[in-house]
Each structure stands twice: as C-alpha cells, then as structure tokens.
C-alpha cells in the first residue's frame, strides 16, 4: 500500500489542530485521532501534487467540521457510559425525591415533626436534581431540537410548578406569584402541545389522551386551589354569625331570669345567684380574652385570609394558656354539676357539652375561634337551664 510520503510541517499541523480543537471534543483520545486522520487525508492530496491550502480545502469538502462534535456524541451514546450515569442519576433523583415527598406527606397527615423539612428536601431534590438532569439527557439524545418551544415551556412549567409547591409548603412570601406563573406556563404548554399534535401525524391518539390528561389535571389543580382559598372563609363566617345569634337569644332570656330571681327577697338565695353569675361571667370573659388574643394585631381582612388560616405557629405559643383554660372549664363543670342538684338530664348535658381539651388549640385560628364561641354558647345554655330550674322552684 502506498502511504503518503509528504509530511505536513509543524505550522500546518498546528493549523489543522486549531480547527479541530475549536470543535471542543474532550472524550478520551478522540481529538488526537481526528487530527491525525485529517492530517493523513491532507497528506494524501499533497502526494497528488496539491499545495496545502488546496489539499486542506478538498478535505474540508469531504468532512464537515460542524459534525466533528457529533462523532463524540455518537461515541458516547455507543459507549453508553455517560448516558448510563445520567440515567442512573435521573432514576435516583426521581425515586429519592418522590419517596421523600411521600414520606413527608405521611408525616404531615400524622402530625409528626419534620414533615416540613422532608417535604422541602424532596421538592428540592426533584427541582434541582431531577429537572436539570432531565434537560441534559433530552439534549444529549437530541430530543430538544425537534420541538424546542414545547420542551422549553414544558420543562419550565414543571420547574415552576415544583417551586410553587415548595413556596406554598414553606409559606414563603410571593408564593401566589409562583403559582400563577406556573399556571400561565402550563397553559402555554398545553396550547403548544395541541398545535404539536395537530402538526404531527403519528401517535395522535396517545398524544391526544396525554393532552386530555394534562388538561384535566390542570383544571383540577386550579379548582382545588380556588376552593381551598374560598371555603374556610365562608364556613368560618357563617358558623360565627349563626353562633352569635343563638348566644344573643340565650343571653336575653338569661338576663330576664336574673332580673326575676334578684327581685325575690331571699338574701341567701341572692348571694348564691350573684356568686353563680360572677362565676359564669368570669369564665366567659376569660374565653373572650383568649379569642381576642387569637386575632391580636391582625386586621379584619388578615384574619380570614389563607395565610393566617394556615398559621398554626400562633396557636402553639398559647399552649399553656389553653391548658389553664382546660382546667378552668373542668372546674366550672364540676361546679355546675354541684349546682344542678343531681337532675339527671341536666347533669348529662353539662358533663357532655361543657368540656374543652387544650388539644383543640391544635387547629387553625378561625377553627379555634369557632370552638371557643361554641363553648360560650354551651355555657350559656347550661346557665339558662340552671337559672330556669331555680326560677321555677
């Protein structure tokens, strides 16, 4: 075989090397081999009598420098090493992220400590582990080029959706904006997906069902969000106004009975009744005070917004106060039972309704608020029953 006998000069090799190095090939000894290969091809033309420039431009016609990087990509795909590592990372990040989120959700449901941290870790793993590797993997396999805008919006939507989850869980400010942002991106993604399906011929049914699935999930997401925004506000206000009304009615009757009883000329009875009245008033005042501190330094609008409803921290601080209240309510119950003169139905009513566990404070402020109002109503009912009995005697 005739091997080239014209050797390239150092400058000429340097010239070729420079062109190849610009392609940014880094895998193993591939770059050196390509330089040698191109040099050999040029030398072959030199043997045929071409000068360097002519020979090199002929070689360049045969091989395009734009595709040199592709050779490395093809090599890597064939060797599968990096791809394999990438796929392992993808799987690991995906599994760890999802398992952490699942465990965190279980923690949250069971009210175990550490749910917030776990959930944050899970979402961070998914957002900053899974999504970037996914982008990289898609890019490697050239899937991004085909439908660039669709992939871009899809990935950004997923990214922002995860971020909004994180913000919501952590009660960070500006979380509404991340939620709305992710909605906009998901909406654009769905439109692009629809256009993409219309344009492409293959797998239409699978794609359309996917689109349907995404759309349903999207609508469900928005509906759930809107419902969760509105519901507590409505129910809280409705219950509150109903309770206030019934308490007002009882209060009117109670005041009337007190007037009746106090008009009777029996000193002992009078002191007893005043004593009883003071007892009830003190307890109710105490409960009212706790109700006020629950919403202390909150504007009316703030009291019913979602952020505050979810704000448990405020309640936890009140734990000692809640325990005191529990004791007091129990003491009051015993006092009432002693005053009910062992009338069976009244005793039953009192022991069943006048009770308050400090664990009730393990709720959102408006719910605790409602429960306290309910307690006041029950105390009023018991008060009314006892006074009514005294009056008839």
């Amino acid at each position, binding site marked *: 075989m005739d091997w080239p006998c014209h050797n390239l000069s150092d400058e000429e090799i340097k010239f070729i090397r420079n062109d190849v190095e610009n392609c940014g090939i880094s895998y193993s000894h591939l770059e050196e081999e390509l330089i040698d290969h191109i040099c050999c091809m040029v030398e072959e033309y030199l043997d045929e009598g071409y000068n360097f420039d002519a020979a090199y431009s002929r070689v360049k016609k045969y091989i395009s420098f734009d595709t040199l990087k*592709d050779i490395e990509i093809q090599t890597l795909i064939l060797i599968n090493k990096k791809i394999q590592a990438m796929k392992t990372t993808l799987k690991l990040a995906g599994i760890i992220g999802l398992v952490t989120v699942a465990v965190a959700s279980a923690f949250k449901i069971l009210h175990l400590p550490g749910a917030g941290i776990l959930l944050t870790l899970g979402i961070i793993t998914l957002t900053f582990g899974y999504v970037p590797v996914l982008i990289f993997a898609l890019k490697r396999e050239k899937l991004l080029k085909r439908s660039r805008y669709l992939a871009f919006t899809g990935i950004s939507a997923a990214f922002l959706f995860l971020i909004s989850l994180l913000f919501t869980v952590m009660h960070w400010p500006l979380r509404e904006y991340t939620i709305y942002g992710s909605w906009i991106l998901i909406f654009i993604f769905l439109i692009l997906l629809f256009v993409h399906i219309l344009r492409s011929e293959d797998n239409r049914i699978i794609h359309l069902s996917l689109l349907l699935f995404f759309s349903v999930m999207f609508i469900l997401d928005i509906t759930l969000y809107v419902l969760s925004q509105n519901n507590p506000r409505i129910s809280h206000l409705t219950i509150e106004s109903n309770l206030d009304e019934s308490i007002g009615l009882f209060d009117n009757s109670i005041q009337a009975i007190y007037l009746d009883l106090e008009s009777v000329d029996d000193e002992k009875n009078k002191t007893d009744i005043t004593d009883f009245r003071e007892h009830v008033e003190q307890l109710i005042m105490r409960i009212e005070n706790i109700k006020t501190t629950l919403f202390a330094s909150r504007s009316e609008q703030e009291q019913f917004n979602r952020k505050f409803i979810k704000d448990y921290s405020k309640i936890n601080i009140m734990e000692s106060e809640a325990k005191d209240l529990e004791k007091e309510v129990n003491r009051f119950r015993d006092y009432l039972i002693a005053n009910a003169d062992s009338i069976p139905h009244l005793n039953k009513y009192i022991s069943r309704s006048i009770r308050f566990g400090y664990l009730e404070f393990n709720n959102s402020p408006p719910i605790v608020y409602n429960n306290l109002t309910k307690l006041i109503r029950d105390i009023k009912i018991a008060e009314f029953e006892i006074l009514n009995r005294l009056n008839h005697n």
Partner: protein
Amino acid sequence: MMISKELLKGSVKSIVLKVLAEHDNMYGYELTQKIEKISEGSIKLTFGALYPILHKLESDGDVITESETVNNRVRVYYKLTKKGNETARVKIRELMEYINIIQKLIGRDYGLAMS
C-alpha cells in the same frame, strides 16, 4: 459500486474486527484505507462511522490502544486483545451466516422475475 450506508451499518463492527484480526496495530486512517483497498473502493468508511465503533470496542475491552508520536502528532494504534479475538471470531461467523441467508433469500427465484 459504492456500498450504501444503510447496508453497511450493521456490519462495520465485524469488518473492523476482521481487519484488526489480520493486522496487528492499526490506526484509524490506516483502517479506512485498508478497507477501501480490499473492497476495491466499494466501502469508504467515514470517520463518523469508524471512531465511535473503535472507542466502543476499546471500552468493551476488545481492543487496547497505544499512542505514538509520528510526524509531530499523536497517532493511536489499535490492537485486538484476547477477548477481542474471540469477539472477532463470533462476529465474523455471525456475519458469514447472515450473508448465507441473504444469499438464499435474494439468490432464489421466487417467480417474481418478469420475462
């Protein structure tokens, strides 16, 4: 006649192994020239087809490489390993069988020939 890329695709690895089995220590350009010469110009391997396969063989342990500086540039020589020899044997036999079957399929007269 030039052999089309599509036809060549599945057999490049076997061809490279066969050539390496018969010649110790070859570098990329040498391999393409050799294959072109043996095939009388019918098979011109582009380096886009050759190098990924050479590197795959290397990572699978079928070949080892040796670098040498020749004419002021690095030249990488490929040599079959023991395992590579075995792979070559298997791959060549597989290709031969394939050629036989294709021969049977294509060579037979199914009565399709129009008179």
